[in-house]
Each structure stands twice: as structure tokens, then as C-alpha cells.
């Protein structure tokens, strides 16, 4: 696959799958205000994914639009990081297949928001005008996501004994997957290699963890490969839910 198309898909799919997981909270959040917040952030990310997938379809040149790319590809064709496909309950003591864990959701949301903010800041200066335009617009949105999720991380981390223990447990699950946020290659004239975000991301994350009185786990050598199309066992289940309407009623529209 063309390097530029791959680069756009890695970002587009990360937004798309992150939106899908956040959207699972709709109607289930602990309070109404948070239900609206999680759904709205999911909506922003879905909008960003849509713009990026539309562009990816043009780059591909095979006549596929954003809906076909979002709903009709096979698992190996998705290039999102594994972090965003993990279930919302990934850190719960159960099997992780159902339910929702707010601590894990909140931490992941903050980790991705900080990352997206750093990436969009750089991409808005891209020589690729389409990508630069999408980044400039999306940057304004993810700043609110970063602010909101960071507030929650601090409130829960530096909260009660119970909330801190849950955040610390969620952090242990999340941490090895963070490595992949710095794994994808850059493309000359399009966007930076993700590793160029790593120093800034780790500095911001360390500041947030200190404020939230959370201790960073030991670094892991794990290198998830979602950005290359190799996903976890959770991805198939997620896609089954996400794609079933288009699979059952091909071409169905509102």
C-alpha cells in the first residue's frame, strides 16, 4: 500500500475505533453530564475519521467512500493502534469482554487526546493541504478532549483510596499499549514519524501523572502492531458490532 495512504489510514482508523469505544458509553455513563461528554467526544472523533477516510478513499483511487472504508474492510485492513480497540472494561477483574470501566476509559482518553493534540499541531503545517486543513480543525476539538479527560484523571487519581487504586490498576493495563503511539513511520512532505511525538508526550504524561498522584508502571518491551494491521482478539468483536448493519443491509443509508 502507498505510504501516504497508510499514514492517513493509521490516523483515520485510530480516530474511528476510539470513537466506537467511547460511543459504547452512550446511555451508560455514571452521570448525565459525562454521558454527553463521552458521546460528544466520540462524535468529534468520528467526524475527524470521516474527513480522513474520505481523503484516504481519494488517495486510494478505487472509488471507495468513507462509509465503505469504515464499514466494509476486513480486520487486517484497519491500521488503528491496538490501544483504542481494547474493551472499555480491559482493566476490570472480569474477562474484559463486557461492561465498562470508567478508570480505563478516562486514562485512555487522556493518553490519546494528548497524542492527537501533538500530532495535529504538527500536521496543521503539513505540505499536504488537505491533511493540514483537517488537522487545523481537529486540533481545536481535541484540546477540549485533553482538558476534560485530564481533569478526570487528576480527580480520580488524586481522589479516594478506591478511585486511586482503580486508576492505578487501569494504568498498569494501559501502559504497554502506549508504546505503539510512537511506532508508525513518517512520510516526507505529509507528516512526521510518530516517534517525533514521544518526548513531548512522555513529558506531558509525566506531569499529568504527578498531578494525579499516580505512579508510572515499569516500561514494557511490548510492541503492538495494529498500525500494521495486526490486531488483538478484541478487534473482531468490535468490528462485528460496528459493521453488522452494513453487512446485513449493504449500502443502507439513513
Amino acid at each position, binding site marked *: 500500500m502507498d505510504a501516504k495512504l497508510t499514514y492517513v489510514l493509521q490516523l483515520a482508523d485510530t480516530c474511528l475505533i476510539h470513537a466506537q469505544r467511547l460511543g459504547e458509553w452512550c446511555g451508560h455513563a455514571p452521570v448525565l*453530564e*459525562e454521558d*454527553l*461528554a463521552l458521546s*460528544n*467526544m*466520540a*462524535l*468529534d*472523533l*468520528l*467526524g*475527524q475519521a*470521516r*474527513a480522513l477516510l474520505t481523503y484516504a478513499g481519494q488517495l486510494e483511487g478505487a472509488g471507495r467512500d468513507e462509509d465503505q472504508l469504515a464499514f466494509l474492510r476486513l480486520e487486517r485492513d484497519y491500521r488503528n493502534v491496538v490501544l483504542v480497540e481494547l474493551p472499555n472494561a480491559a482493566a476490570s477483574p472480569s474477562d474484559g469482554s463486557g461492561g465498562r470501566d470508567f478508570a480505563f476509559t478516562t486514562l485512555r482518553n487522556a493518553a490519546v487526546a494528548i497524542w492527537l493534540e501533538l500530532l495535529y499541531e504538527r500536521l496543521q503545517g503539513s505540505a499536504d*493541504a488537505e491533511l*493540514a*486543513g*483537517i488537522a*487545523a*480543525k*481537529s486540533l*481545536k*476539538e481535541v*484540546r*477540549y478532549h485533553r*482538558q*476534560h479527560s485530564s481533569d478526570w484523571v487528576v480527580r480520580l487519581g488524586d481522589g479516594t483510596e478506591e478511585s486511586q487504586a482503580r486508576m492505578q490498576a487501569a494504568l498498569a493495563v494501559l501502559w504497554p499499549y502506549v508504546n505503539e503511539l510512537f511506532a508508525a513511520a513518517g512520510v516526507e512532505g505529509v507528516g512526521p514519524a510518530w516517534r517525533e511525538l514521544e518526548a513531548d508526550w512522555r513529558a506531558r504524561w509525566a506531569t499529568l501523572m504527578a498531578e494525579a498522584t499516580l505512579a508510572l508502571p515499569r516500561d514494557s518491551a511490548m510492541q503492538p502492531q495494529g498500525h500494521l494491521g495486526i490486531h488483538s482478539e478484541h478487534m473482531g468483536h468490535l468490528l462485528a458490532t460496528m459493521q453488522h448493519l452494513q453487512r446485513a443491509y449493504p449500502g443502507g443509508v439513513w
Partner: protein
Amino acid sequence: MNLAAARARLAAVPDPEIPAVSLMELGIVRDLRETDAGLEVVLTPTYSGCPATELIADDVRAALAEFGPVTVTLQRVPAWTTDWITPEGRDKLQQYGIVPPQCSAEQAIRVVPRLRCPRCRGAQTEQLSRFGSTPCKSTWRCVDCGEPFEYFKPL
């Protein structure tokens, strides 16, 4: 074709989610022009995922249908900003019970503003959530009168 009449008609099209203000007052109409193929309206969507974008395009086409073929073009660059809401739009938002943006988006990411309640003008207000019933608003409460209200977030 009477472009002025078309413009007047377009100016009357309300935002579907905040009908107190028009699309023009919200600052999402970039241009209305005549082309060989009829009228072209250039719109800038507010938020990437705003579910009203398609509805807005439909409303514009319907409102201008009597003037012939209408093309709606979406333009992403430069990105929409709340700085483009007109003074009339701001007044109407305020009267409708939605506090208009009080600063630029750049300032908004650093400080939480101090708002006055749009109903009782009370100065004791608090933010309940950075998000609200639509992507563009946050949720607030007035401590004085106890009423909830919304704030149009700077973007």
C-alpha cells in the same frame, strides 16, 4: 436572477439545532454566488462530527429552490471559529438563554471563564461539564437562581 433576493432568503434559514440564530449569524455561510450551473452556497461546518451538517445543506437547498439549481459546497479551510458569530447572533443567543463565547479559543483552553446567568444575571455560576446537548456547548448552573444554562464554547 436576483442575488439579493436569494441572499435575503438564505439569511432567514435558521440553524436546525439552535433555531434562535440563522446560519449567517452563526458565521457558517462563507459565500453565495452565481455560477453557470446556478447558485452556489459555500458553507463551513462548525465541528467535524456535527450531525446537523447534512441537514443544514438540505435546508439551504430547500430555501433557495425557487431560484433554480443550487449547489452546496463544504469548505474546511480556514476552520470555522466562534469569532465569526455576528453581533446580532451573539445577542440572539444570549436572549435564547445560551451565553455567547466570551473569549477566543486560544484563551479558552487556559482559563474557565466567569459567566453571568443569562436568566437572572447572577454572577455566581459554575461549569457542570465542558460538553452539552450539542458539541458546541458546555453545561453550566447558576447558583443564585438554581437554573441550568448553556455556554457556546469558544472554538
